[in-house]
C-alpha cells in the first residue's frame, strides 16, 4: 500500500508539473461547456429578414410589425421588387424574405384568402426550417386573433406541452453530451498517453523490473486520473447548474455513481488503447479518431440516433457514451431513479469488465 501511495504521488507530480496537461485537464472542460452552452445552439435569435410588400395596407403593416416585434426576427430591409430579392440573399445577411401579395387586405375581405410567400435561404437547412415554421406560427396566431369572433365549424386545436425541457433550451441537450465527451477524452486519452509515455521513455521497463506487479503499475497510473475526472465531472455539473440553470431532477448520489462508472469505463478503454499502441502519438491518434468521433457523432449527443440509418444505430450500441448520455439525461432532466436506467447501467458495467479483461490479457502478452 505504501508503495502504491508513492506511485500516486509521483503521478501527481507528473500531472502538476506539466502545464499543458493541466490546461487540457481543467481548461478544456470549462471552455467546451461555455462554447456549447452559449455559442452552439439550435435556437434562432434575431434572424435578419427582408419584406417585399406589394400592398402596403393595414393588414400587411400590422403583420410586419408583429414579426418585427418578436424576439426571433429583425426586419433588415424592405425590398422594392422581386429582382432585388436575389441580390439581398446574395449579400448573405438576410436569411428569409416575406412577400405579401397585391391587395392583401382587400383579398382577405372579399375572397377570405390572401397569400404570403416565405422564401428562406436553405444553405443552412436546419435554420431555414426553423425560420419557416416560426413565421408560420406567427401568421397562424394572427389569423386566430382576427377570427376570434367568427365561429368555424370543426376545428382541431392541438395543445402541445413540452415536457422535461419546456423552453427547448439546447444547452440542456448539450451539457450531458459535453460531459460525456470530456470525461471520455480526459480519462481515456490522458491515461493512454501517460502509460505510453513511460513506454516511450523506457521507464516502463524499469517499473516492470521492479517488484511492483504489472497490474499495480497500471492501477497506480489510473487512480490519479479517476480523481481528476471526478473533479471535472463536478465542475461541469456545477457550471451547468449555476451558469445554464440546468436542473438536476434526480438524485445527485446516483448521478455521481453513474459518472464514476463511466469514468472507470473510459479509463479501462484508455488502458486498452495503451496496450496496443507503442508511442504517445499513436495513443493520441487512436483516442481521438477511435473515441472522439464516435462519441460526438454516434452517441446521440448532437445527431438524434433515431433518424440514423439502421446500420449506424446498431453500431451506436457498442459506444459506451450512448448509454451514459441516456443515463444522465434521465437523471438530470427526467429525475428518474435506478429503476428506469438499470439496463443502461448494466450495459456500462459489462463493457467496463470486458475492457479490463481484454487489457489484462493484452498486457501479459506484451511482457512475454
Amino acid at each position, binding site marked *: 500500500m505504501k508503495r502504491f501511495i*508513492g506511485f500516486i504521488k*509521483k503521478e501527481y507530480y507528473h500531472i502538476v508539473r506539466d502545464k499543458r496537461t493541466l490546461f487540457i485537464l481543467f481548461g478544456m472542460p470549462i471552455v467546451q461547456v461555455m462554447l456549447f452552452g452559449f455559442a452552439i445552439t439550435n435556437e434562432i435569435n434575431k434572424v435578419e429578414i427582408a419584406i417585399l410588400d406589394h400592398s402596403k395596407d393595414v393588414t400587411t403593416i400590422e403583420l410586419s410589425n408583429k414579426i418585427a416585434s418578436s424576439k426571433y426576427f429583425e426586419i433588415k430591409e424592405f425590398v422594392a421588387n422581386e429582382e432585388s430579392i436575389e441580390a439581398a440573399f446574395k449579400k448573405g445577411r438576410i436569411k428569409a424574405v416575406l412577400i405579401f401579395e397585391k391587395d392583401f387586405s382587400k383579398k382577405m375581405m372579399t375572397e377570405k384568402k390572401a397569400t404570403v410567400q416565405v422564401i428562406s435561404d436553405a444553405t443552412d437547412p436546419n435554420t431555414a426550417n426553423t425560420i419557416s415554421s416560426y413565421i408560420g406560427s406567427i401568421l397562424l396566431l394572427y389569423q386566430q386573433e382576427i377570427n376570434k369572433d367568427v365561429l368555424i365549424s370543426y376545428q382541431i386545436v392541438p395543445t402541445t406541452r413540452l415536457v422535461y425541457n419546456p423552453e427547448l433550451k439546447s444547452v440542456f441537450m448539450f451539457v450531458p453530451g459535453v460531459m460525456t465527451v470530456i470525461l471520455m477524452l480526459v480519462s481515456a486519452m490522458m491515461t493512454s498517453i501517460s502509460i505510453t509515455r513511460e513506454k516511450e521513455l*523506457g*521507464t516502463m*521497463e524499469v517499473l516492470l*523490473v*521492479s*517488484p511492483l506487479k504489472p497490474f499495480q503499475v497500471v492501477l497506480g497510473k489510473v487512480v490519479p486520473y479517476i480523481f481528476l475526472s471526478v473533479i471535472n465531472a463536478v465542475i461541469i455539473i456545477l457550471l451547468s447548474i449555476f451558469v445554464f440553470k440546468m436542473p438536476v431532477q434526480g438524485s445527485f448520489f446516483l448521478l455521481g455513481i453513474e459518472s464514476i462508472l463511466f469514468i472507470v469505463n473510459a479509463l479501462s478503454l484508455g488502458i486498452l488503447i495503451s496496450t496496443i499502441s507503442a508511442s504517445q502519438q499513436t495513443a493520441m491518434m487512436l483516442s481521438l479518431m477511435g473515441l472522439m468521433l464516435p462519441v460526438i457523432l454516434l452517441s446521440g449527443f448532437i445527431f438524434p440516433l433515431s433518424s440514423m440509418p439502421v446500420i449506424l444505430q446498431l453500431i451506436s450500441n457498442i459506444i459506451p457514451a450512448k448509454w451514459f448520455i441516456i443515463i444522465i439525461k434521465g437523471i438530470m432532466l427526467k429525475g428518474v431513479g435506478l429503476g428506469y436506467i438499470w439496463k443502461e447501467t448494466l450495459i456500462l458495467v459489462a463493457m467496463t469488465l470486458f475492457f479490463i479483461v481484454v487489457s489484462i490479457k493484452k498486457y501479459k502478452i506484451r511482457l512475454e
Partner: protein
Amino acid sequence: MKIENVIAVKDLTKRFGAFTAVDHISFEVGKGEIFGFLGANGAGKTTAMKMLIGISKPTSGEATVAGFDVRKHTEEVKKSIGYMSQGFSLYNDLTIQDNITFFGGIYGLKKTAIQEKSKLLIQDLGLEKMANKLLGALPLGWKQKVAFSVALLHNPKIIFLDEPTGGVDPITRRQFWEMIYREAHKGITVFVTTHYMDEAEYCDRVSIMVEGKIAALDTPKNLKEHYQVDSMNQVFLKLARNIE
C-alpha cells in the same frame, strides 16, 4: 578467483517466430565480477539480458540469477537485482530527491531508510545544491550517475546495466566506470552491456555475442593473446569477420 556463481545460464534460447534472437547461450558470472556483455547492435544482447531480469520469458534453456530460477521465481529475482535501462531510466520531470524517494518506495524501503540513503547518495555525487531541482536540468552524464545510484538503492546483489554510457562524454564515462569499480569492490556483481570496446577492457571478463551466439568468453587479456591483437576492438572485428 571464482567463489560462487551469482548468475548461471545454460542453453538459454529465445525465439521470435522463425527468428532466433538468442541461440543456446551458456555462461556463469561470479560474485563481485564485472561481466561485460558485448556484441553489435542486434546481436541479441538486450534480449538475453531481458530474460535474466525477468521481463522476457525464455523459449528454452535455464537461467538462475542470485540463486533464483528466472522462470519460476521471477519476483525473487526482481528483488535481488538493480536495473538501468538503455537510454535513461529516471523521470526528468521529477526532482532528484523525488526520483530517489519514488524508486526507494517501489522497492519497499522504509521512509527513514530512504531519507538516510538519499542523503548519502546526494553527498556522494556532490549534488547537494541540485537535490530539489528537476532531474531534466542535469547533463546526461550526471543523470546516468544518478540513475546508477538509484538502481543500487535497495542493495541488490547484482546490477544490470544496459548500455549505461551511450551518448556520454569520455570523461564522464571514465567517472562512471570508477563508480562501477567501487561497487564491484563492495561485492556487487555488475552485468554490463556496451558497444564501446575501450570499456570492454575495464571488465573482468567479457563475452562477445555474434548473431545470437556467444562467440568468445574470457578475460580481455586472454582474448587479446588468443587472437594475437592488442586491443579489444581488434578482437571484436576479427570475431565479427570470421562469422561472416
